[in-house]
């Protein structure tokens, strides 16, 4: 999707916009649409066939829904492709479980993923990143080059061997971008989703059986030690993989595309001391996890709009993170922006469990990228992912000049 608005916001007719249509995100201008929503209709009903959802565009609205767990439940599924379908993993998978039960599953995982635990892996992650970037020069596709990145740090934590990372990456793509022509199977989006999901589930079930027979003291064993079913263990592995593998590589890719558009790459590369702040801004600005779904448990209001018990509510994170009330000049990628939290990792009890790991990995990627390349040039058309959930670029052809 276009990461900065390029059309006239005033001319957008919101009545004709369909936020459930992946084409809007592949070829349209969602940031212009969201800006129009924040100005005119911040909480808007989006009909989808015989059902629909409330689309929330503001920072305040999204933060309220994310943190008011009693009123907005995760048990009805958390992504749009679950709209109108029962969530089989509710109460068993951390992403589809509400507090207070959530703590039972999340606590042990959180300990495994705490910064202290994760930092032990920093050297390994850096080695992988060097391996990924080190052989690149001349013309290549930056998006393709960094796509194995998430598995390079999640793989070792879950005991997934390197030869399986490309397979996992393909299955994840089928599970989150089922409309994208590069991932969709012939039988259509639903079949793509089903097959990606089932193959990934099968892989993870075999993996958890291996871990049961030969414990490795990693994330999978932490899950196996919990009082949840075999299906619950696999569903949680699935959540960890999807959260990490789908989203993270889109931060450097989207950021590089914008730095090339604005000519800011040399400035960023020259100021390595500012990388931690720059990474945080890159996460806000790219917001790869595009939306979250919740279900209202009782009648309530969001930003003054009445919501009925049972209604689906979708928070557009890309919009909340460009809310001009909190982020002056919101579409500008500004590494010196300080003091304002963003919602790219969510908020409240479901705050991204891998956030510390993601920040660490991204810091390393930016450091290594700036270290290796003195400049890049755009060398072809940028292609955006066709997905309502995953905001990102799948093809960024560049010519890179190593230092």
């Amino acid at each position, binding site marked *: 999707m276009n990461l900065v608005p390029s059309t006239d916001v005033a001319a957008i007719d919101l009545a004709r916009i369909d936020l459930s249509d992946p084409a809007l995100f592949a070829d349209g201008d969602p940031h212009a649409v969201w800006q129009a929503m924040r100005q005119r209709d911040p909480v808007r009903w989006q009909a989808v066939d015989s059902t629909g959802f409330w689309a929330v565009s503001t920072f305040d609205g999204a933060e309220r829904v994310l943190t008011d767990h009693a009123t907005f439940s995760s048990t009805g599924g958390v992504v749009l492709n679950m709209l109108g379908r029962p969530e089989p993993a509710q109460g068993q998978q951390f992403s589809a479980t509400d507090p207070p039960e959530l703590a039972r599953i999340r606590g042990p995982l959180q300990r495994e993923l705490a910064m202290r635990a994760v930092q032990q892996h920093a050297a390994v992650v850096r080695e992988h990143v060097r391996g990924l970037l080190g052989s690149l020069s001349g013309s290549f596709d930056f998006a393709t080059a960094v796509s194995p990145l998430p598995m390079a740090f999640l793989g070792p934590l879950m005991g997934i061997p390197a030869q399986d990372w490309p397979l996992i990456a393909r299955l994840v793509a089928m599970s989150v971008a089922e409309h994208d022509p590069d991932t969709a199977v012939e039988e259509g989006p639903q079949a793509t989703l089903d097959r990606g999901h*089932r193959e990934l589930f099968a892989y993870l079930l075999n993996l958890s*059986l291996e871990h049961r027979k030969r414990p490795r003291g990693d994330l999978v064993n932490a899950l196996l030690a919990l009082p949840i*079913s075999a299906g619950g263990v696999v569903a949680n592995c699935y959540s960890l993989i999807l959260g990490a593998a789908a989203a993270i590589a889109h931060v450097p890719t989207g950021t590089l595309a914008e730095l090339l558009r604005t000519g800011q790459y040399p400035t960023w590369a020259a100021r390595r001391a500012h990388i931690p702040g720059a990474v945080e801004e890159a996460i806000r600005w790219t917001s790869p996890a595009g939306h979250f779904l919740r279900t209202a448990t009782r009648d309530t209001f969001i930003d003054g709009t009445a919501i009925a018990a049972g209604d689906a509510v979708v928070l557009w994170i890309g919009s909340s993170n460009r809310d001009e009330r909190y982020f002056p000049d919101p579409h500008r990628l500004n590494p010196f922006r300080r003091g304002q939290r963003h919602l790219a990792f969510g908020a409240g009890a479901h705050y991204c469990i891998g956030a510390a790991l993601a920040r660490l990995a991204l810091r390393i990627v930016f450091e290594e990228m700036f270290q290796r390349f003195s400049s890049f040039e755009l060398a072809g058309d940028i292609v955006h992912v066709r997905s309502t959930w995953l905001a990102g670029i799948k093809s960024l052809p560049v010519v890179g000049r190593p230092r």
Partner: protein
Amino acid sequence: MQQRAELEGRLIELWSEKLGVPTVTAEDNFFALGGDSLLAADLLMDIYEEFGLEIDAAVLFLRPTIADLLQEVSAV
């Protein structure tokens, strides 16, 4: 052979119990009967615990019938 018949009978029982469906045949599709991925994982773990049989999960997830599971077991 007897073991196979015993396994088939037990699989039919397990399916019907997990899915809440009174009659299950060896040709029924697990997902078409209302099964989901979590139940499928539970089922394979039950088979492992009860029979010590490790069936490649891909069989149940991609060819989800009892007939296919039995064929996989006899091939092992």
